């Protein structure tokens, strides 16, 4: 039972580094800008029920399994699946490909965050005011029709094209930001887990500090309680919608960063006698806690923003009435508005009608839900403008987002580096620093795609098609392989040897039946729901009739083909490698039959 290890495998300096790295990988941007959004649209507190169920029956078992298998077999994803069975080598290759592709677009998000961070050191913040038009008589029309924050995001940051077919030029400022993002990633990743382990002390803990600061600050803002009540008031009706369950299952899955191979890589650098069960519980619970903890300041701030919008709406109405009827300044207030309105409407209804007064409803403003980049770069930046000391809050917020994303990037890159190191594909004369540099450089080059004018549309495609379905397939095969090919009894023995305790009935039941079944159901539901509609995307088109509403377009044929390829290519390696190995096996079998040689060295099927 000795696996020869010539160069000693790198290992974590201490347990804390390992835990922080796993937590940092799991806790990412999605915890901040996807989970609160899902809570909001799926009935607030009620969403926690499907989320909790998915966590217990799908998230935790898979997490425990990945950590355990990596720790036991002490190899990255390719090596681990190869060890279990050579026909499964494709599983590791698939994980590696997905990690690489996700790393490409994930770092673009970091580049955008850096862009906003660089711009937060000005007074006033550049997204507060519209720029003046050429002859200084007014504001740029695109900005006037939408809003300064929208204009800054879509025009000054992305310089977005009206649709995905128009590529537009490469935006040099985004190239600079992407280069700095990759530079920052490289400096932490340069020696693999040696440097990651040092960097993680900061990048994994800093977000919690900032979240706490924001929590305290946001609770003092006016309208915060409205936002929080809105978030947590459960609407039990939503539980009848099957989409809620599907989204909860996929959210817990992607939130824990399963099937990327990164967790397997991290745990492979552990000592073998380590309680992986407790680690899995800690990582899973901290991840879910962070999601809920992050929702509180996010929603307090969204409530504050809705309140501001509501007050502005009312004040606009008041001003219209005051100016039109020449009533004394500040005689109409928010409190007596209804009295005045009824009086004026009774005296001169036609005049009142001509004013086009708005209906101001706080609920409507609260209902405006946004997730993803929209939350960070549009909604949040707008809220920050109205807070005193806006620059400080903006800087803190973007540094927090950057650390969240950076620690997740480590996992993505380790998911690529560790298998490559284990496969000994890299000639030994190339030092690790150069190899990681080459990895970063090649990812940067391919990632230049996202700096085009249509880059945002491509990023959405990558996010939807690479970062979703392939992972479900990989995870399903992972759990089937461990339970039925490696053997659940053998796995139980391994865990008993590593932790000193045999996994209890909960783990047995979930590993054997519940989790694979849930994954299968989620996957089928996902495919069915995605396949029944032709995919569309939102575009930002200033020439659109109903601008600033998004112009919804269908993907052109060639783009749709690329989408399908992105989903299929990573997972096609699973059958391909199996087939390749099988051909090799058949070949040997046939050769043996034709040429029986009793001294023939039966080459182990462990050769690669």
């Amino acid at each position: 039972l000795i696996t020869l290890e010539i160069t000693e495998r790198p290992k974590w300096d201490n347990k804390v580094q390992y835990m922080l790295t796993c937590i940092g990988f799991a806790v990412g941007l999605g915890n901040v800008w996807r989970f609160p959004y899902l809570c909001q649209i799926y009935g607030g507190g009620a969403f926690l029920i499907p989320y909790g169920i998915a966590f217990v029956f799908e998230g935790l078992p898979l997490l425990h399994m990945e950590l355990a298998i990596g720790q036991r077999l002490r190899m990255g994803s390719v090596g681990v699946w190869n060890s279990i069975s050579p026909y499964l080598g494709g599983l590791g290759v698939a994980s590696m490909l997905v990690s690489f592709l996700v790393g490409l677009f994930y770092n673009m998000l970091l580049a955008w965050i850096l862009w906003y961070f660089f711009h937060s050191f000005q007074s006033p913040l550049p997204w507060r005011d519209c720029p003046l038009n050429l002859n200084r008589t007014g504001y740029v029309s695109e900005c006037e029709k939408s809003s300064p924050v929208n204009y800054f995001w879509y025009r000054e940051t992305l310089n977005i094209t009206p649709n995905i077919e128009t590529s537009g030029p490469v935006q040099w400022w985004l190239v600079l930001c992407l280069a700095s993002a990759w530079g920052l990633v490289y400096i932490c990743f340069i020696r693999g887990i040696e440097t990651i382990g040092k960097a993680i002390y900061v990048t994994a803990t800093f977000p919690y500090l900032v979240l706490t600061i924001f929590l305290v600050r946001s609770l003092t803002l006016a309208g915060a309680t409205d936002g929080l009540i809105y978030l947590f008031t459960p609407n039990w009706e939503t539980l009848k919608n099957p989409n809620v369950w599907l989204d909860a299952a996929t959210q817990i899955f992607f939130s824990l960063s399963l099937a990327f191979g990164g967790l397997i890589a991290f745990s492979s650098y552990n000592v073998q006698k380590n309680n992986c069960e407790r680690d899995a519980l800690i990582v899973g619970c901290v991840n879910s806690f962070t999601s809920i903890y992050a929702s509180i300041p996010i929603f307090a701030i969204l409530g504050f923003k809705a309140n501001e919008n509501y007050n502005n709406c009312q004040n606009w109405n008041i001003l219209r009435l005051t100016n039109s009827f020449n009533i004394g300044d500040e005689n109409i207030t928010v409190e007596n508005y209804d009295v005045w309105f009824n009086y004026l409407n009774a005296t001169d209804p036609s005049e009142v009608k001509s004013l086009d007064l708005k209906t101001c409803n706080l609920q409507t403003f609260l209902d405006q839900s946004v997730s993803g980049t929209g939350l960070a770069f549009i909604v949040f930046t707008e809220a920050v403008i109205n807070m005193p000391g806006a620059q400080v809050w903006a800087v803190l917020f973007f540094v927090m987002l950057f650390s969240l994303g950076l620690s997740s990037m480590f996992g993505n890159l380790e998911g690529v580096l560790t298998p490559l190191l284990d496969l000994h594909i890299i000639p030994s004369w190339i030092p690790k620093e150069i190899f990681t540099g080459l990895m970063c450089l090649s990812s940067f080059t391919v990632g230049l795609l996202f700096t085009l004018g249509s880059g945002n549309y491509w990023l959405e495609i990558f996010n939807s098609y690479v970062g979703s379905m392939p992972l479900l397939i990989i995870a399903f095969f992972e759990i089937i392989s461990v339970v039925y090919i490696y053997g659940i009894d053998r796995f139980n023995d391994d865990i008993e040897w590593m932790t000193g305790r045999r996994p209890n009935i909960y783990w047995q039941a979930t590993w054997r039946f519940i989790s694979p079944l849930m994954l299968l159901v989620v996957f089928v539901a996902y495919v069915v729901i995605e396949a029944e509609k032709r995919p569309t995307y939102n575009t930002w088109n200033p020439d659109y009739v109903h601008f600033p509403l998004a112009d919804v377009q269908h993907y052109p044929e060639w783009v749709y083909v690329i989408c399908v390829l992105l989903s299929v290519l990573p997972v096609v390696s699973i059958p391909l490698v199996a087939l390749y190995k099988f051909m090799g096996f058949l070949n040997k079998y046939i050769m043996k039959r034709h040429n029986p040689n009793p001294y023939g060295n039966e080459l182990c099927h462990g050769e690669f």
Partner: protein
Amino acid sequence: MLWKVLLLLGLSSAWAQKLCSPGASDGYKVRLSINSALGDQAYVWNENEMFLFRATLAFAMRTYSDGQEYDVANVVVCDETPRVSFWFVVTSPLDASLLVDKRRVEEAVRKSRSRINSAFLLTDDTLEFIGIPPTLEAPVAPDTPPWLIAFGVVMGGVGAGIVVLLVSSVVQKIRKKRDGEEETGGKTENEAASDAIYNMSFSDDEPVTQM
């Protein structure tokens, strides 16, 4: 004689009132929002404040228009409302029945806007001349965009860090090699083993021996 003078005065004021009317082609509407601007410090709008306005406007016309000697009487005000809003027209100092052209009034107001505002402790938003939009301030464009400075700082730090790390690892390797050569005068056993090619046929690919 007296009644002639009185008649003339009455006629002229009546005439002046006729010149000024809401929607007059050469007139402008002014709107003040004193309470919104000043809150507790708000002053009451009365005849004296109106006199100040007419005087300020006469000043603006004197300084920025054709240089004629405009007087308070040349600024005629009408249609005052509790809002506080009113219409005004400017008559020529040479002939009280002639109105000064709209564009000249606009030009004078534009150029002296900040003086007028400060006379009343108000701003462009709270002292509005309907039809004369305030000249938008030209944005201050610094020579180097500030974001490039922040970018330069970050990239400088990153570049320095990468160089330091690479140099330190090279130095480490050289030091290790030197130590290794000093110890045995050749390759150490560990290094000899590391040159070996890992022959997987000798390894048990099943880490747990089957019982």
